[in-house]
């Protein structure tokens, strides 16, 4: 009894001490899976592309789950994707991201598609400190806000304008295009379009005497009638027609371009032109020689590497169909997030964010490895590839030379002298 009393007192004191410092934290229940959320424009004006991005995400998730899941520390966890439709609407994209984070309790977010939706939605991820990886919004303005949790696998649209002009400049220097060449520069009135305009305008300013921008006009997104704009282009008698448009506007505008009887030595709609859907909608004859600059092309699969692996997997999953850059960048975004989680060895958001900010991973993008330079707002800076539609309905890569699968044609042979 005498012996027991001090033990009892000790135990009591120990219990009180524990109460004073707080009970030892209960161990968190073991994580059953890694949960990732995303919204996509599955209805509304960007529904078509939203569907493409969905394909890329789903393929990446299927692959990793088939392989047994992600190696997170010393356990293998499956990954689950919660995908919602933001109806191509900013407010909906924001409030569904809020739902994914605060109600569905996802660990990480993947981006929606289109710069204007991503610009709005990424504020929610930043607010709640959730890593947000996206390959659908290339406007530089998105990345100039000092956000820490936003990462872009998509290079700046400004670089797209510069890349197209670099190829055009080579043709001009080879004597295939007039000097000075008159340009019609049409850009959608969005951050995306403004970036494209800046890329082209800066190039023109740096090459004084070689180019004159004769028409510099913006147009509203989702336009239905471009006839007035095309009338101005016709009156200006330009040599180069350079527009920046999203897919629905490209199809509408080019249909009216063809109907107006326009023809230019170089015709480009920025990143659009080589999409199979657009070729089907407009007819092979009408899209011949259109130049486009894209973030990725399935022709990069000609050489062994990540692009070939992706194209093989995509074709096997989607009935032999060739992927476009939308699916590729979506797939890449998901895969990069998985790599960051595995390298961090945890699903802790801050640890994964830090890993993303410093990592350099092998990627399917032209130019090779992918990284997110902090000085450029954590936006990838990989080069574009330039493609040109050919009369047989194909779109070989014509620039840069090291990945080219065909030779570009300038001036447009369709136009009468």
């Amino acid at each position, binding site marked *: 009894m005498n012996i027991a009393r001090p033990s009892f007192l000790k135990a009591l004191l120990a219990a009180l001490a524990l109460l004073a410092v707080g009970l030892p934290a209960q161990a968190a229940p073991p994580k059953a899976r890694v949960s990732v959320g995303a919204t996509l424009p*599955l209805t509304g004006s960007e529904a078509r592309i939203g569907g493409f991005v969905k394909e890329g995400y789903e393929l990446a998730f299927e692959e990793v789950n088939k392989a047994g899941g992600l190696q997170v520390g010393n356990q293998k966890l499956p990954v689950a994707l919660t995908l919602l439709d933001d109806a191509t609407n900013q407010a909906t994209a924001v409030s569904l991201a*809020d*739902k994914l984070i605060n*109600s569905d309790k996802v660990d990480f977010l993947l981006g929606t598609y289109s710069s204007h939706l991503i*610009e709005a939605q990424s*504020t929610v991820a930043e607010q709640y400190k959730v890593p947000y990886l996206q390959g659908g919004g290339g406007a530089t303005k998105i990345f100039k806000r000092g956000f820490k949790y936003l990462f872009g696998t998509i290079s700046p649209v400004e670089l797209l304008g510069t890349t197209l002009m670099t190829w055009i400049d080579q043709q001009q220097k080879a004597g295939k295009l007039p000097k000075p060449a008159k340009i019609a520069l049409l850009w959608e009135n*969005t951050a995306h379009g403004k970036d494209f305009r800046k890329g082209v305008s800066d190039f023109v300013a740096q090459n004084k005497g070689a180019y004159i921008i004769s028409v510099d006009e913006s147009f509203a997104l989702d336009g239905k009638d471009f006839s007035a704009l095309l009338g101005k282009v016709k009156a200006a008698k330009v040599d180069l027609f350079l527009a920046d448009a999203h897919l629905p506007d490209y199809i509408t505008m080019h249909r009216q371009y063809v109907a107006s009887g326009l023809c230019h030595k170089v015709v480009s709609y920025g990143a659009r032109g080589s999409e199979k859907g657009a070729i089907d909608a407009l007819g092979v004859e009408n899209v011949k020689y259109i130049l486009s600059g894209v973030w990725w092309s399935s022709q990069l699969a000609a050489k062994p590497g990540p692009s070939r692996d992706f194209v093989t997997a995509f074709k096997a999953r989607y009935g032999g169909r060739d992927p476009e850059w939308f699916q590729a960048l979506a797939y890449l975004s998901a895969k990069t997030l998985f790599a960051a989680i595995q390298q961090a060895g945890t699903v802790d958001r801050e640890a994964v964010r830090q890993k993303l900010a410093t990592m350099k991973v092998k990627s399917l993008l032209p130019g090779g490895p992918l990284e997110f330079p902090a000085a450029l707002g954590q936006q990838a800076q990989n080069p574009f590839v330039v493609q040109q539609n050919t009369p047989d309905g194909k779109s070989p890569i014509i620039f840069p030379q090291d990945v080219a699968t065909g030779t570009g044609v300038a001036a447009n042979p369709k136009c009468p002298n």
Partner: protein
Amino acid sequence: MRSRIRGLAPTPILAGFLLTGAALAVLPLVLELSIYTHNLMTLTFLSVAGALAWNWMGGFLGQVSFGHAATFGVGGFVAARIVLWAPVPAPLAWLVGGLVAGVFALGAHPALRLRGPYFSIATIGLGEATRLLFTYWEDFTGGSSGLSLPIETALKHRLYWWGLGLVVLVTAASWLIRRSGLGLQLLAIKADVDAAADLGVSATFYQDLMIALSGAVVGVTGGMWASYFSFIEPNDMFGFDRSIGFVLMAVIGGVGTVLGPLLGAVVFVLLRQYLLASYPQLYLGVYGLLLIFIILFEPLGLTGLLRRLWQRLSALRGKV
């Protein structure tokens, strides 16, 4: 004075209204609402306030506006600019945004000569013209790139109570307008503007007053919206979809009634969010069906439905 207030608002209604407001105010403090629910309720309050203010024009005055997004956008961008330019409290910026939106709404004065569908068509034109004007006014709105505001999590959280306060104010104002002499004069203008003028009702003045007040409140909600989202863009703020949204909320709930737009906005925001999150393929179809049902069978919307139910219940009680 007390009897006058009692005349405007019978005690049970006043008590019910105040109790509901108080219950909603303490709800996040007593219940552990998830952040998502908290935020969704904030959005609902903003929509309710906007719909109630729209109803002053479209319901009480009978001038159905398809251009209220213009005042929403003006209020939002003015408030956003003030927040970005000067370190003023956000509520002051919302207030100034609302005042500017109210004055801006008076720009629709010439259209008030038109009645019925002609007025509605004119407001579509005014709304779209405003959208284009502000989209191309890059120095002020950032153009199509929009404006990013500082992300203030605490302010977003507090917006719940600011939004609720606005709803309480606007609901009370709706009730008072409906029950006051002003409401009767608005009804007279709605029924026949010429006959009302013959009876000495200053139709022009009251129409201007209502369009300015309605525009100002919608402008304040625009300012709060900007603070909530931390990013605004002209095509979204001034979009035609937004104007249609105000009309739909009122139609679903019951145009011209006091509580109709409130009920309509609650259904509009919550049902839409639920359908979008759970049944994305169905949400447009469900909306379409809801509208067709209401227009065909119950022109007074949910309010009419509730009234019918109430009458049935009363009749049953009488039989018992």
